[in-house]
């Protein structure tokens, strides 16, 4: 009986133990940004040229570590087998195995590398190695200053994923997709080694953080000394003073129940600055998941509360450093409006 139970259990577990399907995983986890066949979108195009320059190990580590602050998330919870399946699927597009690089560190002089970096690399990769230009990959939805943004060489995800030998080969061969020139014949092996040594000491900039008292909290909450109607008017006036356009008020439950059952003591004040909005959508088209800007006024247990999403915290969800910076600025504006309305 016990033996039969064992076999039955094993049979039930077969789907879980089966080899992961790379195509299915890619479509689920990667295609939204990289497109169905690596054409690129919010994420980097996984073109044949790019894939021919990077090892399977680099792709696997990139999936695992992501690029902090550069949109690509880290998939820490994917199993080794799942990551390998995604890599194999992506690699299958090229029809041949990827390059394999030595993992040993290339010895060079970072000080000499600094001078060479300033001469040959800084124009595209930036002073601190963050990569110049707006955003990360290419997207079909907005104009870009480069087809593919120069890599953020100071990014901890890049540093952990790229071997010295792989970086050396890319420096020498260049990359047509991103207009990176080939330095073969222009830089000696030793000079290339110096540049790599310099890249290894680059550090990402320290991110700006929101106000200490709101860190880790989902929302800014302030109690109003006024009644609900007065508070709503105060918020509207403060928003207009901060150059926001205000949309018609909506009750939070509006549309979720019939008009007679809606709680009219929970009001959402939606507002927007269109110029800023479109600028932000250019930085990250996924921003809509946090839209529209809204301050809620709720009457609850005899109190009137003014509440807004913690935008500094919310902005970090996009793993986009540029957007995170804007989140901190928006926090100051929204807290200013809320304070003015509840004075």
């Amino acid at each position: 009986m016990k033996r039969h139970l064992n076999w039955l259990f094993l049979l039930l577990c077969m789907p879980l133990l089966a080899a992961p399907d790379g195509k299915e995983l890619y479509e689920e986890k990667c295609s939204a940004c990289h497109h169905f066949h690596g054409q690129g979108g919010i994420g980097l195009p996984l073109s044949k040229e790019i894939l021919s320059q990077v090892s399977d190990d680099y792709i696997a580590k990139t999936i695992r570590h992501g690029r902090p602050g550069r949109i690509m998330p880290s998939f820490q919870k994917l199993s080794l087998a799942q990551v390998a399946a995604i890599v194999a699927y992506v690699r299958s597009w090229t029809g041949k195995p990827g390059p394999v690089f030595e993992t040993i560190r290339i010895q060079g002089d970072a000080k000499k590398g600094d001078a060479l970096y300033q001469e040959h690399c800084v124009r595209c990769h930036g002073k601190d190695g963050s990569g110049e230009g707006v955003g990360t990959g290419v997207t079909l939805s907005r104009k870009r200053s480069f087809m593919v943004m120069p890599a953020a060489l100071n990014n901890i995800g890049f540093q952990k994923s790229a071997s010295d030998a792989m970086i050396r080969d890319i420096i020498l061969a260049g990359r047509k997709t991103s207009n990176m020139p080939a330095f073969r014949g222009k830089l000696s092996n030793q000079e290339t080694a110096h540049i790599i040594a310099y890249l290894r000491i680059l550090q990402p900039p320290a991110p700006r953080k929101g106000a200490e008292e709101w860190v880790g909290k989902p929302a800014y909450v302030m109690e109003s000394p006024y009644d609900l109607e007065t508070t709503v008017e105060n918020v509207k006036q403060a928003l207009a003073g901060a150059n926001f356009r205000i949309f018609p008020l909506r009750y939070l439950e509006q549309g979720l129940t019939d008009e007679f059952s809606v709680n009219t003591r929970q009001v959402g004040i939606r507002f927007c600055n269109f110029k800023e909005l479109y600028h932000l959508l250019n930085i990250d088209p996924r921003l809509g998941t946090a839209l529209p800007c809204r301050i809620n006024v709720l009457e609850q247990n005899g109190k009137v509360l003014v509440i807004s999403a913690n935008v500094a915290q919310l902005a970090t969800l996009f793993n986009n450093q540029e957007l995170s910076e804007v989140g901190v600025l928006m926090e100051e504006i929204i807290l200013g409006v809320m304070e003015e309305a509840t004075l």
Partner: protein
Amino acid sequence: MRMIVGICLVLLLTFPVQADQTLVMARSSAKAAHVMDVLRETIPEYGYSVAHVQRCDGGMAEFDYKTDFYRVVFFGRVEEVRSILARHPEMSPYLPLKIVVIAENNETLLAAMDPRALGSMFPGDAQLQLQFSRWYNDIQSMLDEMRQLKK
């Protein structure tokens, strides 16, 4: 018995906990207007009401944004909204739930916040954590359906 324990151990090591994301996203090869229509029909099938749809694409072209279709779909269950806001008014900015629908040429991108990303901000409320997981499962399933839509 040892075999069962062994299998359980293997499963624990190989079956990942899928919570390393803050956004739930999907790409559909269908056009945005079609995805939008299907999504509006799909949301009630999961027991939610569509509260409203907000257009965000009014003047996008003037700002170099090439898509002409950007919608935010708000949806929820009134009893959940009431129950949660009674305990946590600070959840009000995140309710109703929403899914963004963006055209990218002839294809469509969908994105939503993973509600579980809010979990760490409500460490003491196990019921809410469960609610976040349920919402996540529903949003993921809806987006999977949109991903599988044909052109």
